[in-house]
């Protein structure tokens, strides 16, 4: 009467086992889904993941020395800095040969600027030597040791050779050491001279300023978001435009406006002097320092705090507060025990947004930060666009990235990343 008693796999209509047929249908569906997101996936891989990976790689990559001076590097292996002497003739002969090849490809000056990051003077040493070495007849012109030292006495300086030897490996931790105010030396890594230590200080400052900016955004943004979500839709939309308006103004315009307001001959000081709160010869210094950076950046980043807070607060039913009060809670207690916990996901989202944006800012601090209000990103920008020390810039950027990831992990442990809502 029925076939269900039959043992064996359940079959689909076409006779194949149902399980396999289902799998095939699902696989097709998965492939289709993958094909649909493929453009985005490829886009993200090419424009986001690959450049970051490339940047991280640059912070350790150091092939230029061994590629430009291949023979010299091999010959130099037996030389010791402790000998206190420049290397032997064999090294100099190899150098002459390598340099001539490099000069033909115009690579010697590039190597010179690379090594100049580690020791001042190597840039011009290579540039100058290039002009002469070009004309030598190799290998018949030897011996080269005296010729090089006659050309520039720095070739006899063991410290120059130590730099070449130290950086002759394909990969180096030198950039990372530089990024934490350390340097390589014949006896191992050591702290830099105090007159050159700056990056650790800037990392600390970046953290401190970013946290301060996040907190001040929260303190200013919370009441605004609360107000926006508790008034009728029409009014709140209107007020929302006021929140968004600065968002649509150029960053530079907003920053310059703060200059006009905060400088010593600026609007705020003028008003304070006029009403007699401040003496004319003792005007407040509110810009070109940390205060200026905090004020200008809080203003610029405020919408990033208000918007997530607002969208979370909108979903909190006002009846909860009324219910709490009807059961005898004071205003404060009702807010703190009932309303505030429900707004925490918004605080989390807003704070993460503001903090991460703040940590990478450099235009505003450059314009209003003076000397005490600049971020590590200002130095990264300098090394990328001005000194061309991309390796150091990449190392600083990698450390910054690690710091952010560490903080993110910490946040996840304390608050929980599931507890973040954008709306």
């Amino acid at each position, binding site marked *: 009467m029925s076939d269900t008693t039959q043992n064996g796999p359940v079959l689909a209509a076409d006779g194949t086992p149902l399980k396999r047929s289902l799998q095939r249908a699902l696989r097709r569906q998965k492939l289709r889904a993958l094909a649909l997101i493929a453009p985005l996936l490829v886009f993200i891989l090419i424009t986001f993941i690959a450049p970051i990976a490339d940047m991280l790689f640059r912070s350790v990559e150091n092939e230029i020395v061994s590629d430009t001076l291949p023979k010299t590097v091999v010959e130099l292996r037996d030389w010791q800095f402790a000998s206190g002497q420049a290397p032997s003739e064999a090294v100099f002969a190899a150098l002459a040969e390598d340099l001539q090849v490099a000069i033909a*490809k*115009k*690579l010697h*000056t*590039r190597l*010179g*600027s690379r090594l*100049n*990051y580690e020791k*001042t*003077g*190597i*840039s*011009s040493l290579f*540039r100058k030597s290039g002009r002469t070495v070009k004309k030598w007849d190799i290998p018949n012109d030897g011996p080269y040791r005296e010729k090089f030292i006659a050309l520039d006495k720095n070739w006899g300086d063991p410290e120059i050779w130590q730099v070449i030897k130290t950086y002759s490996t394909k990969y180096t931790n030198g950039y990372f050491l530089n990024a934490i105010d350390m340097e390589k030396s014949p006896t191992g890594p050591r702290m830099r001279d105090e*007159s*050159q*230590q*700056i990056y650790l*200080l*800037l990392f600390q*400052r970046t953290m401190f300023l970013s946290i301060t900016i996040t907190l001040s955004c929260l303190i200013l943004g919370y009441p605004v978001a609360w107000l926006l979500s508790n008034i009728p839709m029409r009014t709140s939309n209107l007020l929302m435009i006021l929140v968004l308006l600065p968002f649509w103004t150029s960053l530079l315009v907003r920053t310059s406006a703060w*200059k006009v307001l905060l*400088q*010593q*001959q*600026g609007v705020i000081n003028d008003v304070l002097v006029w009403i007699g709160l401040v003496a004319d010869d003792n005007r407040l210094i509110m810009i*070109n320092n940390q205060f200026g950076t905090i004020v200008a950046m809080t203003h610029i980043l405020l919408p990033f705090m208000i918007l997530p807070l607002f969208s979370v607060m909108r979903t909190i039913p006002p009846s909860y507060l009324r219910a709490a009060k009807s059961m005898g809670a004071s205003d404060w207690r009702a807010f703190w025990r009932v309303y505030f916990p429900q707004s925490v996901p918004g605080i989390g989202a807003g704070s993460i947004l503001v903090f991460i944006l703040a940590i990478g800012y450099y235009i505003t601090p*450059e*314009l209003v930060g*003076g*000397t*005490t209000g*600049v971020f590590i990103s200002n*130095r990264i920008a*300098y090394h*990328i*666009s*001005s*000194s*061309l*020390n991309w390796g150091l810039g990449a190392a600083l950027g990698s450390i910054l990235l690690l710091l952010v990831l560490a903080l993110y992990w910490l946040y996840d442990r304390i608050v929980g990343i599931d507890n973040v809502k954008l709306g």
Partner: protein
Amino acid sequence: MKLSKTFVTAVSVLTLSASSAWAQDMTIVSWGGAYSKSQQLAYHDPYMAANPGVNIINDESSAEAVAKLRAMNEAGNVTWDVVDVVASDAIRLCDEGLALEIDADTQLADGADGSKASDDFGDLLVSDCFIPQIVYSTTFGYRTDLVGNTPPTDVCAVFDTATYPGKRSLEKRPINNMEWALICDGVAKADVYDVLQTEEGQTRAFAKLDTIKDDVIWWSAGADTPQLLADGEVVMGSTYNGRLFSLIEEQKQPVAMLWDAQVFDLDGWIIPAGLTPEREAAALAYVKFATDTQRLADQAKYISYGPARASSAPLVGKHADLGIEMAPHMPTDPNNAKNTFLYNYEWWADYRDDLDAKFQAWLAK
């Protein structure tokens, strides 16, 4: 109706792309603002009038030119044809192999007086890749109404906070500031770099700068000092002489020039390495035209920077809009150039990385 509109748009887009394919596009990179405008009027417009096949596109990326050229070179796709850079950047680009080497005598125009290009430019050919265009200077301007009856005549007024109280603005980098500090600490001009080369000399320069550290507003954009002077925020400040010219002569602010110990610097063209032969030839043709005697003299009608050719100096005339003689406003004018020095490119190419690190550490303290 709608269809015909679409049709017209499509046709015009087609003609546009066809005409631009016919005209040769040339991307010229410069600094923007008044400076680019002076180049447009003195170089680009006459060149396009004489060569109807060329279409010049302006790009205002000179400030990041070195980094961008390096990135373009690594990507194997150089989109710029001619780039305006300061001399120190030209040296850097030449060192990195990112700029084309130029033989001045064969590839640039002879002077109007018949001199060879290499003689006409003289010492200003500071790099094999660099084609000089203007001489500008970094110098001080001061508020005439804030200095009392004794206007400063000497660069050391910057360090004299007793006679000239108030803030000063200095550039946020060691170049120039270290030299001025040493000169005002009693080092002879000729010995400045020998002293600055030593550890003690650097300490000495920083110690001198320490005396005014609390009175300095550090600038990083050329427009900062003119704004600070106009607002009365600083009593004196360093910036490029052309910026001060427009503040004084065009905006009529109570500011005067303090030419003493001005530092000459050069700005000019480079042609990126790695262009196709046709683009390279077109770029060379443009540069040859734009740096001839008359063209360089013409630029001085629009901005107060001195032409880099000796043969252009006698041809400098009046400002195109203001109608004032430009010669007395040139940094190279004998009255202004009584006490000057030239940016020492070789020296700074070596010491820049090291001193910049020390300078930033000093600033942050």
